[in-house]
């Protein structure tokens, strides 16, 4: 049992499974292939169940903050089946294609949006040794992939042949690009402290020493702010801006196409929560409980925190948002990198 905790629950289970498969097939390549597929299935399962759980959670959190009860009809007193009812509704909705839209680009946009947000999950260390692809340029690759999410928004906005969608698409580009920069610089400090771009190393360093939220508080704040902007949630939901530009880039989508946007949104929400956990809150490290439990506790707390922010704060304006990014967050992040560098230098010199 202790050995299991030592090596991580997920890794142990995977090891046992691999041994059984090896016994069954006796072929290294086939076993690896099957293990990869199981991993992919697990990650997709995490994303889908996250979307289901989070739609319910968001409704409940929103309702509780707004002194309401939230879903309380479908599936008992607590409305547990509400997300499934939502799903059914979305699936049974008519697929409306606006007149004069660019059909191919329009249809591609929601699918392309889902790809980078799902791909990012490959690099998340869910538990000790439970990283799907623990590449040595993990952080770099992660940022590179997640910034691809800009394009589908622009595609959707452009192809919808709708004025609101067009404005939404334009806003997305401005917002996501300008928040990419401070986000990267806020992570740079951590990379400097760890000395590695590997995700598992970052967590391992925190598990051995101290959580980076204590060493890099400024970077943490910058990262949380930029993460809210990257996921297009209030106070930075200008891309959707329901009361201004209706629903922005996906104003014209309905039914399952819209559901894909929705899925990507919640996948992104979980992704940034996991990133915050991994980079600043020590990932799977924690006493007594298995690592995977700690990991999910922290990640879900971050999800709740983002929801809490969303249902409290009003929306900023586009010029205020951009000037916050370029005039405040970016210099702050750069200064943080500098200070970290000096700090690391002094530490080594001592």
């Amino acid at each position, binding site marked *: 049992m202790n050995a299991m905790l030592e090596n991580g629950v997920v890794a142990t289970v995977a090891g046992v499974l691999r041994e059984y498969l090896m016994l069954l097939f006796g072929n290294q390549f086939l076993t690896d292939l099957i293990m990869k597929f199981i991993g992919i299935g697990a990650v997709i399962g995490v994303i889908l169940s996250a979307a289901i759980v989070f739609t319910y959670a968001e409704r409940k959190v929103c309702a509780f903050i707004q002194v309401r009860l939230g879903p309380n009809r479908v599936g008992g007193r607590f409305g547990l089946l509400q997300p499934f009812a939502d799903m059914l509704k979305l699936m049974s909705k008519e697929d409306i294609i606006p007149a004069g839209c660019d059909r191919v680009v329009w249809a591609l946009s929601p699918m392309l949006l889902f790809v980078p947000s799902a791909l990012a999950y490959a690099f998340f260390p869910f538990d000790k040794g439970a990283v799907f692809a623990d590449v040595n340029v993990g952080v770099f690759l992660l940022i590179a992939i997640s910034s691809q999410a800009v394009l589908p928004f622009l595609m959707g906005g452009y192809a919808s042949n709708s004025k609101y969608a067009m404005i939404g698409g334009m806003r997305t580009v401005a917002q996501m690009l300008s928040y990419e920069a401070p986000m990267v610089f806020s992570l740079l400090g951590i990379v400097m402290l760890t000395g590695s771009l590997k995700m598992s190393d970052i967590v391992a360093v925190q598990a051995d020493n101290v959580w980076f939220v204590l060493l890099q508080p400024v970077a943490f704040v910058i990262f949380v702010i930029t993460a809210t902007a990257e996921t297009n949630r209030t106070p930075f939901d200008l891309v959707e801006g329901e009361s201004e530009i209706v629903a922005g880039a996906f104003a014209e989508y309905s039914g399952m196409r819209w559901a894909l946007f929705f899925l990507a949104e919640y996948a992104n929400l979980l992704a940034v929560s996991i990133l915050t956990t991994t980079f600043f809150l020590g990932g799977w490290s924690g006493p007594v409980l298995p690592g995977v439990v700690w990991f999910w506790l922290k990640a879900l707390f971050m999800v709740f925190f983002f929801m809490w922010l969303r249902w409290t704060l009003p929306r900023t*304006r586009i010029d205020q948002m951009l000037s916050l990014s370029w005039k405040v967050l970016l210099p702050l992040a750069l200064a943080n990198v500098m200070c970290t560098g000096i700090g690391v230098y002094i530490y080594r010199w001592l």
Partner: protein
Amino acid sequence: MPQTETYILNMGPQHPSTHGVLRVNLELDGERILRATPMMGYLHRGIEKLLEARTYVQGVPYTDRLDYVSSMNNNFGYCRAVEELAGIEVPERAEYIRVIMAELNRIASHQVFIGSLANDLGASTGMLYTFRDREEILDLFDLVCGARMTFHYIRVGGVARDLPPEFAEKCRKFLDRVPEFTAEYANLLMGNEIFQRRLKGVSRLTPEQALAHNMTGPNIRATGIPFDIRKVDGYSVYPRFGFEVPVGENGDNWDRFQVRFREITESARIVRQALDGLPEGPVMAKFPKMLKPPQGEVFSRTEGTRGELGFYIVSDGTAKPYRVHIRRPSFINMQALDDMCRGYLIGDSVVAFSAIDPLMGEVDC
């Protein structure tokens, strides 16, 4: 040769934040607004014409449907005009009750304003909180007149019926809660830096501009002009109560919000004084059932929640008015929309609609 063009965006009539069925034609240069033209009439029901075909007493429920968020104030304005035309003396107790109702309704309406402004800014939680507190006022109205929206309580010659015995106690309980919930709005919204940055310095109007657009109500008071009919005309029993007219300094959206926010407290003060000084006596004046005012005309105005609410009634001596014209404050305030939007961003235009606080039932009449 590449050429740039302006972008025409039709906001509304179906849009989440145009407060009903307002349509605003925005001419945009990127995110910046070059021109905003309000287009209305989607809720036009011809109330002026309808009133011509009803007797004076039957007309009162139609005024409920003008500004349906503060019906009591509309009833009040119309009944005052008819009383002035027919020379009816309203009993003192009825006047006190009318003032109580009008001021409570002003609080309720300003709560809707705060809530919808918060919602338009993306903070929908603020809206739920204000609506939760507004329910208490609606409960009071329900107790008094049996309706929660179209009250039809203030009648020609007085009020429909006397206050129920438990009203005073419940009303005081509500008044005690006013500081509590205003503090909550202040902490949730007013103290919020994002909220402040969205409102301060946006949609600025100078006092000259506001006067030129003939604005009234909180919108003109936000520019620093203390034009409040309750003080200027001193109608009904308002001169007997001590209250202040909050004014702004800069005429921006922040001041429009502040003025209304402080008016809640002032209205609560008036209600408390009126409750304390409520005299005994009848609540309905004596006048013939089939009211036939003498030939003549009258223009009577009151301070509605959105500004100066005037009723111009021409009587030809029969039981029905010959002509009724309603000076609707939201309608006239809408003229300032272009000046309030020009040069600002799309996000600000939504706040500008909210800050004028138009009610389409009143704009379109």
